[in-house]
């Protein structure tokens, strides 16, 4: 497929970059080669229009879900288990009910529908049923007229626990049969031997998503017996399905709207307060608001799976990989959540973006009585990458090669095959990304500005006390949902005259979680429909599912759906122009993506919608600036005229090409939709005596296929890299005997702006022939390789093995 000119894609493989210093601005539409953005001149694809939420957030005026208010509302509070493992012999809510101002106290017995929920497996109780399996598990809920009243009433609930010894060691859990999923990958010869063998065991601590907006929402009882739920989430329809099941209501009676989301990173994919607030609202007949406190939030969402990774890499003396054997153990905590998919990712991506003829990987996820783990940016690929990239450095050392060279020698490329046997279609510029970060100019040498030295302004470190190190890493991530999942997104697009001006209304259920999706949807509509005015409706469940804002998939999926819906609208308009009414529900432009499937709303009426944004291939017509022209440039009509007959609305459910499950024995199968790659070079200055690290600069190179919004691409790369830095140097939930010992932002450390270095970013735009506009998911890859690159740099500076993240001062002073 290489070389094919794609709709709206920059097929020339153009690249752009942003230096590490200063506030360089990403290119706007068409600033560097490639195809002109028709209709996108003002905020179409490839431009970086101002986001509607940006200024509000900076000024503190954005309404988050915790700001929701209804005049007659009650406040919900949750009683949580103080024990990681216990039976429940009885619950006495009498004293809580007696508190003045309390309206309801509910336990598992009050759950009218399914008492368990879950994204993949419904095994997590809405409220504890006869036992608790982690500390912080919800046991009972209270509604009262004041949040403090609700909390104090919750404290008065008497629970008779039969405390059990918790299982907190994942190895013990595995040996004890608490397996959630085992994914084996078998490729080539399991007994392959090699001239050079390097082994290592690595560990990754439990990272938290550390979003700032705590779990919160407002449930309002509806006159029809249903409930309206306003909530910060990643996937409205998955919430809807689970809430309805728990309430014992048909889904139509559970209506969700997205409230202002204060960060997500995977932590909002599972339910938190959704069912609880709804139960209380239905029970009391009053709106009920719930907002978790910070400590509560740390037990109120899933975390990144801590991992133990054992690797053996065999290679030739020239550093060419012969085999990789790995065992990856992930602690899933008390409930299943997304552990099965995380395990599959860790396994299928477990050797990294390398050509390896012989692969034996066994990845396990287990249940323990630790806090549940699930989705977090990078999703299984993060843990594996720390393992395999640490190994690649060991291999480089063993064969006497430069770390970039050993990686380039083994780099996966287009047409290469994954350990699952899946052939990588479309660009896989692994070697090029590595070379890009390698060839970046080195950051300035150690200077004497204290702000640039380890320890910053804290008088710790003079330039001569510093050792510099440079480290590299590259990662691979799957985009969209895998393993045969029916992954789809729905968009409804309506074009009409408002105040005499053609206006597009885009409606999806896709969650804007801060990534800029609202802006991207509007950009696509502008490009496709040649209009300037686009209104993006609040995401809610009155339109079909968009799938989750996770797996780096939403611009691909909802972007794809919006594009398809816009093209259906355009086709209808052109049919109006022709005065005919044809048939054909297909959106020809996306047919090879596995087909755009109409959900009944699509009535195509003539004319295939073709390649370039705004261009209509069938008749050689072009729609731009509200005017329709033919190939000769003659004006055939205007949008205003065409819309005078009434609005055009189309709704499309859009799918990516299908994937397949992994074979349960061999792990073979075309399980993933798209692969995304990012490489990092980290430069660090270390004060080995005091154990202080200053990350001097991070160079990143990433292939994004097509930068729909270059500014947002940069934001994802910088933010993702910072999150990877956090895991490398400081972020870890300290869980002892099943208890999180640092549930606050004073004790769970995330990087401050002073800890985050300047970033030099190279963006490649190598179109993926299967993806809308050739784009590639952007959000996760930069998180994945930042961590190992930084640790590699510290190793280079200190010579220490550093087999565990995060790396803290005591690991560097050699006195830990």
């Amino acid at each position: 497929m290489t070389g094919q000119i794609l709709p709206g894609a920059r097929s020339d493989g153009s690249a752009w970059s942003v230096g590490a210093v200063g506030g360089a601005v990403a290119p706007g539409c068409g600033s560097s080669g490639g195809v002109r953005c028709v209709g996108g001149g003002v905020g179409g694809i490839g431009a970086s229009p101002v986001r509607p939420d940006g200024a509000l957030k900076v000024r503190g005026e954005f309404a988050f879900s915790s700001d929701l208010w209804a005049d007659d509302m009650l406040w919900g509070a949750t009683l949580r288990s103080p024990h990681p493992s216990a039976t429940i012999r009885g619950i006495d809510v009498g004293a809580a009910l007696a508190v003045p101002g309390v309206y309801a106290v509910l336990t598992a017995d009050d759950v009218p529908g399914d008492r368990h929920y879950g994204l993949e497996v419904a095994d997590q109780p809405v409220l504890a049923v006869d036992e608790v399996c982690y500390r912080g598990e919800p046991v009972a809920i209270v509604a009262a007229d004041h949040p403090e009243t609700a909390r104090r009433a919750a404290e008065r609930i008497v629970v008779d626990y039969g405390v059990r010894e918790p299982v907190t060691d994942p190895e013990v859990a595995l040996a004890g049969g608490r397996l959630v999923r085992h994914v084996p990958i078998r490729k080539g010869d399991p007994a392959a031997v090699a001239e050079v063998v390097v082994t290592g065991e690595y560990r990754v601590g439990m990272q938290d998503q550390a979003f700032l907006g705590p779990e919160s929402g407002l449930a309002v009882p509806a006159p029809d017996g249903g409930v309206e739920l306003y909530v910060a989430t990643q996937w409205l329809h998955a919430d809807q399905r689970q809430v309805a099941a728990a309430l014992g209501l048909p889904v139509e009676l559970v209506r969700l709207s997205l409230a202002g989301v204060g960060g997500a990173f995977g932590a909002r994919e599972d339910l938190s307060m959704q069912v609880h607030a709804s139960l209380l609202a239905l029970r009391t007949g009053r709106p009920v608001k719930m907002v978790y406190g910070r400590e509560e939030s740390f037990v109120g969402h899933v975390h990144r799976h801590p991992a133990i990774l054992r690797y053996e890499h065999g290679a030739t003396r020239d550093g060419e990989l012969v085999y990789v054997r790995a065992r990856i153990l992930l602690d899933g905590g008390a409930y299943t959540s997304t552990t099965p998919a995380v395990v599959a990712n860790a396994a299928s991506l477990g050797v990294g973006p390398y050509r390896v003829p012989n692969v034996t990987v066994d990845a396990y996820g287990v249940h323990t009585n630790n806090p549940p783990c699930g989705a977090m940016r990078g999703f299984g690929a993060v843990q594996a990458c720390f393992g395999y990239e640490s190994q690649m450095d060991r291999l480089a050392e063993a064969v006497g090669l430069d770390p970039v060279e050993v990686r380039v020698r083994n780099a996966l490329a287009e047409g290469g095959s994954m350990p699952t046997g899946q052939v990588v279609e479309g660009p896989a510029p692994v070697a090029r990304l590595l070379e890009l970060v390698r060839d970046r100019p080195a950051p300035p040498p150690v200077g004497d500005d204290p702000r640039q030295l380890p320890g910053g302004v804290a008088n710790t470190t003079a330039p001569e006390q510093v050792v510099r190190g440079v480290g590299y890493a590259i990662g691979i991530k799957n985009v969209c949902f895998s393993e045969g999942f029916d992954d789809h997104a729905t968009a409804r697009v309506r074009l009409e005259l408002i105040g005499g001006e053609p206006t597009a209304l885009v409606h999806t259920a896709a969650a804007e979680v801060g990534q800029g999706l609202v802006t991207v949807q509007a950009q696509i509509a502008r490009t496709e429909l040649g209009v300037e005015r686009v209104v993006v409706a609040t995401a809610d469940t009155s339109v079909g599912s968009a799938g989750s804002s996770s797996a780096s998939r939403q611009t691909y999926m909802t972007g794809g759906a919006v594009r398809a819906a816009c093209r259906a609208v355009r086709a209808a308009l052109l049919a109006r122009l022709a005065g005919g009414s044809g048939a054909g529900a297909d959106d020809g432009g996306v047919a090879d993506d596995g087909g755009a499937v109409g959900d009944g709303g699509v009535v195509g009426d003539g004319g295939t919608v073709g390649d370039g944004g705004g261009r209509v291939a069938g008749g050689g017509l072009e729609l731009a600036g509200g005017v329709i022209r033919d190939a000769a440039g003659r004006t055939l009509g205007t949008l205003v005229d065409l819309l005078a007959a009434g609005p055009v609305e189309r709704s499309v459910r859009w799918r990516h090409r299908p994937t397949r499950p992994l074979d349960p024995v061999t792990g073979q199968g075309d399980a993933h939709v798209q692969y995304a790659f990012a490489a990092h070079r980290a430069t660090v200055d270390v004060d080995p005596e005091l154990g202080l690290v200053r990350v001097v600069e991070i160079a990143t190179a990433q292939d994004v296929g097509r930068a729909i919004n270059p500014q947002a691409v940069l934001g994802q790369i910088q933010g993702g890299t910072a999150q990877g830095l956090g895991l490398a140097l400081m972020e870890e939930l300290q869980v002892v005997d099943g208890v999180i010992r640092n549930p606050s932002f004073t004790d769970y450390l995330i990087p401050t702006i002073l800890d985050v270095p300047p970033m030099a970013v190279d963006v490649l735009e190598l179109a993926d022939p299967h993806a809308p506009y050739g784009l590639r998911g952007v959000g996760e890859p930069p998180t994945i390789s930042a961590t190992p690159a930084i640790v590699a740099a510290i190793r280079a500076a200190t010579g220490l093995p550093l087999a565990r993240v995060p790396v803290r001062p005591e690991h560097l002073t050699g006195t830990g």
Partner: protein
Amino acid sequence: MRPVSYSRVADVATAIGTVAADPDSTFLAGGTTEVDLQRIHVARSKRLVDINDLPLRQVEELPGGGVRIGAVARMSDVAQALPVRRRFPMVSEALLLGASPQLRNMASIGGNLMQRTRCGYFRDVAAPCNKREPGTGCAAMTGVNRGHAVLGTSEYCIATHPSDLAVALVALDAVVLTQGPAGHRQIPADDFYPMPGETPDREHPVAHGELVVAVEIPPLPMASTSNYLKVRDRESYEFALASAAVAVSLDAGVVTDVRLALGGVATKPWRARRAESVLVGAPATVESFRAAADAELADAVSHGMNAYKIELGRRTIVRALRTVTGDARMVSDDGNPP
């Protein structure tokens, strides 16, 4: 947070009288510790008496080169005050290297000295903690004690005192001035912080209703080139793993006088008297500094995860001494570090 009553007072006598009269009341300054602890139910006062309007905000030069700092003065204002920056840069630096700009704009000097330990078990009302509830035990002893003390510990408590400012004040022989129902008192900073011993709940000698009104730092010419060094897990907004406040006077390469105090490694702001006595009369060399550091940490005890602090404490002392004797002050005069 439980319901509390709140009142705002404008004069010292009313403040003292109001709190002294109600055993369930306490002073509220910037609230950056108090409100936090109320919220997590570690502090349980029912009445908060806001003292921010008291006329205790000034930073005054004292004759002879000392400084007097009002108890309600903000950390950020004191850090910027010229007399403090010129005469006692270690105080300015200790303040600027603590907390975050927003916190420093709220937090007061009195509140800083009275802040409570950051021990995670102290802050978790479900955990045993002798400091919070005498006799319940010390969960940190065998728990997560990476941040805990290696000096001055007892079998009852190993928590550090978190204040950076107090470390500098202890080094400088500052005096805490209080006023209470029983009159005025002057308490040397070093005595202000007792060792935990068997009563870690007794954190200071201030009686209920007694108000810290000011801190006085006596003149010390060599402090004009002093500094404060802080080792922490990230570059801002974080407590010390180890810190040192240091001032040295040299004559022909020999230490004639030295002030050294440590933070982050001890149960109280720790005046390093052993190190000081090794240093006085010794040449200002790395060897002397090491010997001083070894002497100071000789009795250090670790409890597991904090084992690294013994060596880190030594290295911090050596580094601080090297820096101060090498004329390598790092917070610029006009700099406003985060």
